[in-house]
């Protein structure tokens, strides 16, 4: 157990790519948490995908031993946090375990949308913020200008911001000193009843369910019987320890400390993140203030490209869910794509990450339908439903009104691209709330329908700003919208997986775009194929794929008929991936490609 005055609990918050992970590595290295050899780059980003894409997904924690200039040894508990907006929920819960945060800003890029969003989350959580200006080794670094920008935009004192380079190691000692001198130490009473915040939990193949906890009051010990206050379930504690970053059992965690426990808990869902853990025999009277659970806002259906892999997909989703309880899934079936799952995600990136993990870690080829949001529909009989899937759209005559979710988005962009960004927001039915200029950059705040954002907003924003715009959002409110369901039909049959809900004004353009796109994807057949977009049976766009001109193998095979038969077998295997629409067959891949329409 460490003396409270010798503990500092902190997070690092930053816009993506501003150097959070690199800084964490440096701090670990400097404090001798790992030897040079053990030190692989960005040790905290340990999932393959995180490493590759350079984004932290799951918050990680590490205890550093730091001998400060005052001669005393401190325990610095570092919580790494995700930088991306989709995971702001995970940021908040990490912040709840800390007293302070390092706000990392790239000294060449300056404040970006997620810098702001994450800084505000920290300020809301009453954390002490220490700004640090990273990447000062870059020739383009302008620390003085950025220092000013931090003060102007975020409104915190940046006069003592530490200048550093996580790459060269410059300024790292100063950062460590600032942690000790500028952050408050935690408060807590070792003699009080146990109150520990359940910050995170995950499934470890060797240890089972692991819970990450921050002890507020009391002491957590190996062998102790603990109780989850939300469920009342009790478990004997098997292991207690910290990550340095190597897993180290300490047997005990006192007030102010952050560490892990294992307690023969069966599934991650038995660990409600935000719950309070107390002693089963001497329980605390009150739980700690928790945080509200995350709710999925973006929905998409996932299907195995090979229909025989449905059970594998289910098993994979179950496995992933052990580690990430923030996404939901539920079995469904589609005429076009077969058996699959309707899934809910925290945001678009979250969705993409889950999909990629399924493909990468479980070697599954996945088809994802176009992302959709949750609509609130009031029926004529007065009842209300939540619509998660366009396929479940009720008959038009039964609908009294539809509400769609709106978000409040902040976009930061260099001046020269502002015009196109504003135009994009307008096209997407955006309403301007605010427009300000700070040091050569503009910050536009808009209200936007989420369904316009899940379509291909990110990609468009990136391309029109050449990657310079940054974007962040929060859910705002539900509003009545003039929305319709657009069906796509192949030779008159509706393709369920391609149905979409869009604003009436955009229905025609979107329907036509999808038909045009399909036209290039549907291979020519013996017969003509009609591709149509329709609203409630009324056709709004049409394309035709002409019949094939020629398809015959003319090479001479001698008597090797077996080879010819192989061709047929290949055709048959291909047919498994085909869907029959009247007398034509559409390869599943055409639907998949069409569903990726946001990608261009």
């Amino acid at each position, binding site marked *: 157990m460490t003396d409270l005055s010798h503990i500092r609990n902190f997070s690092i918050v930053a816009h993506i790519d501003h150097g959070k992970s690199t800084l964490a590595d440096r701090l670990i290295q400097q404090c001798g948490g790992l030897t040079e050899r053990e030190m692989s780059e960005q040790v905290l980003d340990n999932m393959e995908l995180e490493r590759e894409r350079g984004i932290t997904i799951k918050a990680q924690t590490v205890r550093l031993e730091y001998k400060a200039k005052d001669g005393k040894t401190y325990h610095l508990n570092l919580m790494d946090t995700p930088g991306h907006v989709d995971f702001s929920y995970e940021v908040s819960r990490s912040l709840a375990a800390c007293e302070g945060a390092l706000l990392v800003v790239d000294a060449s890029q300056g404040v970006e949308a997620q810098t702001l969003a994450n800084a505000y989350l920290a300020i809301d959580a009453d954390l002490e913020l220490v700004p640090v200006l990273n990447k000062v080794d870059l020739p383009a670094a302008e620390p003085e200008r950025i220092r000013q920008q931090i003060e102007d935009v975020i409104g915190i004192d940046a006069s003592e911001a530490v200048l550093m380079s996580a790459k060269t190691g410059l300024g790292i000692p100063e950062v460590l000193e600032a942690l000790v001198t500028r952050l408050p130490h935690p408060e807590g009473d070792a003699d009080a009843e146990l109150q520990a915040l359940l910050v995170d939990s995950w499934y470890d193949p060797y240890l089972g369910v692991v819970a990450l906890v921050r002890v507020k009051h009391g002491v957590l010990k190996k062998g102790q019987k603990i109780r989850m206050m939300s469920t009342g379930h009790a478990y004997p504690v098997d292991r207690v320890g910290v990550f340095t970053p190597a897993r180290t059992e300490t047997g005990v965690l006192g007030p102010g400390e952050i560490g892990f426990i294992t307690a023969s808990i069966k599934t991650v869902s038995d660990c409600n993140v935000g719950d309070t853990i107390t002693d089963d025999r001497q329980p605390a009277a009150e739980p700690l203030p928790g945080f509200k659970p995350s709710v999925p806002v973006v929905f998409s259906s996932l299907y195995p490209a090979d229909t025989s892999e449905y059970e594998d997909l289910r098993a994979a989703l179950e496995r992933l869910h052990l580690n990430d309880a923030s996404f939901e899934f539920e079995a469904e079936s589609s005429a076009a794509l077969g058996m699959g799952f309707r899934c809910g995600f925290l945001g678009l990136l979250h969705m993409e990450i889950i999909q990629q993990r399924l493909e990468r870690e479980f070697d599954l080829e996945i088809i994802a339908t176009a992302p959709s949001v949750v609509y609130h529909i009031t029926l004529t009989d007065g009842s209300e439903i939540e619509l998660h899937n366009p396929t479940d759209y009720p008959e038009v005559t039964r609908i009294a009104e539809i509400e769609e979710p709106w978000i409040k988005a902040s976009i930061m962009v260099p001046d020269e691209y502002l015009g196109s960004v504003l135009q994009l927001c307008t096209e997407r039915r955006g309403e301007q709330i605010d427009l300000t200029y700070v040091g050569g950059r503009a910050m536009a705040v808009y209200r936007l329908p989420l369904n316009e954002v899940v379509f291909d907003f990110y990609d468009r924003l990136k391309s029109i700003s050449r990657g310079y715009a940054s974007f962040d959002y929060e859910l705002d409110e539900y509003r009545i919208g003039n929305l319709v369901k657009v069906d796509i039909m192949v030779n008159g049959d509706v393709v369920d997986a391609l149905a979409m809900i869009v604003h009436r004004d955009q229905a025609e353009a979107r329907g036509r775009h999808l038909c045009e796109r399909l036209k290039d994807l549907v291979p*020519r*057949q*013996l*017969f003509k194929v009609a591709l149509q977009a329709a609203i409630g049976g009324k056709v709004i766009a049409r394309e035709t794929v002409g019949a*094939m*001109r*020629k*398809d*015959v*193998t*003319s*090479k*001479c095979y*001698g*008597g*090797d*008929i*077996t080879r*010819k*038969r192989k*061709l*047929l077998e290949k*055709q*048959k295997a291909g*047919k498994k991936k085909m869907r029959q629409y009247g*007398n034509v067959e559409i390869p599943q891949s055409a639907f998949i490609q069409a569903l990726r329409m946001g990608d261009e």
Partner: protein
Amino acid sequence: MADSQQDIALYVHWPFCLSLCPYCDFNSHVRDTIDQGAWREALLRELAHYAAQIPNRRLTSIFFGGGTPSLMPPETAAAIIKHAKSLFAADPDIEITLEANPTSAETLVLEAFAKAGINRLSLGIQALDDAALSALGRTHSKAEAQACITAAHALFERFSFDLIYARPGQTPEAWKAELTDAVAMSRGHLSAYQLTIEPGTPFFLAQARGALELPDEENGAQMFEITQQVLEDAGLPAYEISNHAAPGGESRHNLTYWRHDDYLGIGPGAHGRLQLDGTVHETRQHRAPEIWLDRCLSHGHATQRSTPLTGDLLVEEVTMMGLRLIAGIDGQAFKNRTGLSLGQAFDPNTIAQLTEAGFLETRPDHLVATAAGRQRLNAVIGQLLNS
């Protein structure tokens, strides 16, 4: 039992070539030296091995294919022909074809092959354009090809040659001119194959790299149509997708394949389709030349597979092959081979749909593709056999 089932055709595979062509995925190999005595012996033994299993057959054709069988010693061909005629009852009209490459060296031995008993020649001309020939990796020139054709005219009553079209960069107009040229040199038979890119060949890799520009579907279709038209006008109508002949000049041997009648295949990688004990069998010989040779010399044959071919597989083969013929499939012959009537084998709705769309002809107790249907035969067969 029908008369045709007592007939047998013989295919002999010679697996060696002087060099390998970049589009080719036949069982062809280049070797510095070949033990000609051993190869002759091995082929003769394998022939005898199979002949013993199918007594009382009438031999209607022999086909020496490859590889480049014109590189085999003419004595080897002579010995095989002689042996075959002694093992089977040879039809007096027997057709004996040799595939040959039109290099000058091979032209010189044509006469010896004629003496050995070859009475039909099939020349791998491929193109009548020097640049195209070298792009196809061929070692002969247009002039050599022409000389070879002249020699063939003098030596063989019947000969044919192969052309490959829809080559990289070829236009429909250029193909028309080339084909017209070719017709003038022909004698009663011509095969025109659209270039197929086979996995694993140098052309396949080049295409994957984007270094091979092939005519698109529209141009490919036009070239196919031009081929039908030009050859029809020249009195060489198609009798199969890629094969054209003056009436009566059809390759008897190849008709055996398309009609799914019995044939015997010997030599490395050769395939056969034979009725053994009343069931159609699929046979295949070892593909690798040296393994084949060793097995034949030690065991008398190098059969890798000889399995009954029944049910759906048999129906598939008979259909796939038969629809390639302009004459299509005769219901009675189909039933003799597969045990099923056409009505039992195919879904009437699919037949009706394909007929209505103009891809199949309406002829009682026949299954015949129309010209439009043959041009899209893969898809038509796909519909027929997959529904």
